[in-house]
């Protein structure tokens, strides 16, 4: 069986839904036997979920206003 260190080096593959089935089974064998790595997998998944669930914040109005004014100037200069 893989050591924890070896498993963690392959963690990205384990979390990749498109990983090939042979690799998945190989890695799964470690997770089933190792409670620590089970927790690490679970909390890494949750880490990714929480980041992916955050919508980009609105750009502050003054920042947005300056962006569009700069774009207007650029477009006017090149038209």
């Amino acid at each position: 069986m893989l050591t924890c260190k070896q498993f963690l080096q392959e963690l990205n593959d384990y979390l990749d839904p498109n990983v090939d089935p042979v690799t998945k089974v190989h890695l799964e064998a470690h997770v089933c036997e190792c409670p620590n790595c089970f927790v690490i997998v679970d909390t890494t998944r949750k880490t990714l979920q929480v980041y992916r669930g955050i919508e980009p914040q609105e750009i502050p109005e003054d920042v947005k206003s300056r962006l569009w004014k700069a774009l207007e100037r650029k477009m006017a200069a090149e038209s």
Partner: protein
Amino acid sequence: MTPSSNTAPVSAPAPAPSDEGNLVAQAQAGNAQAFAELVKRYERKIYRIAKNITQNDEDAEDVLQDAFLKAYEHLSGFQGHSRFYTWIVRIAVNEALMKLRKRKGDRFVSLDEPIDTGEEEVKREVAVWEGNPEEQYSKEELQRILNEAVETLKPDFRTVFTLRDIEELSTEETAEALGISIPAVKSRLLRARLALREKLTRQFKRKGEDVFAYL
């Protein structure tokens, strides 16, 4: 042309809702409103990338502006081999990294330099989380916690993590946007994920419980 009015400085009719490729083609043909639509589509994401990489409001604003101005200037050179979004991300990342270099001087490590990712031990906090952070914290508070965790990563790691796991570019797109190899993306992503997991676990862990709370 203002974001509130959603109008462009041209009299041409607004393009109908269309895919990115059509908008790019129209913009390349001189339709400023089509370019404005592309800006509106991606401005928040580009601003988030800029803030995550530079960790500085002023620099992020400069990056936002410079990225879209450069994209407009060089639009005719965009060949369509990649998504427009990947292209604008690459411009924005380059601008953001230049800002970092200026601010940090010689201490900045280039993304092109190899880094050790395989041998260094990653300290592990093994604990289950107390419920669902999205339900336990306000949106603003959660945003602050997540931002602070990303901010502690080295630029190499937070840049890869931002593109791959926040903006959800593919490994290949991330490598292309950063001009680094696919193995480099993978190794930096792994380190970034483990480091963030560690930091968030310290924040969100169930107090007084251990791993066996799962079993």
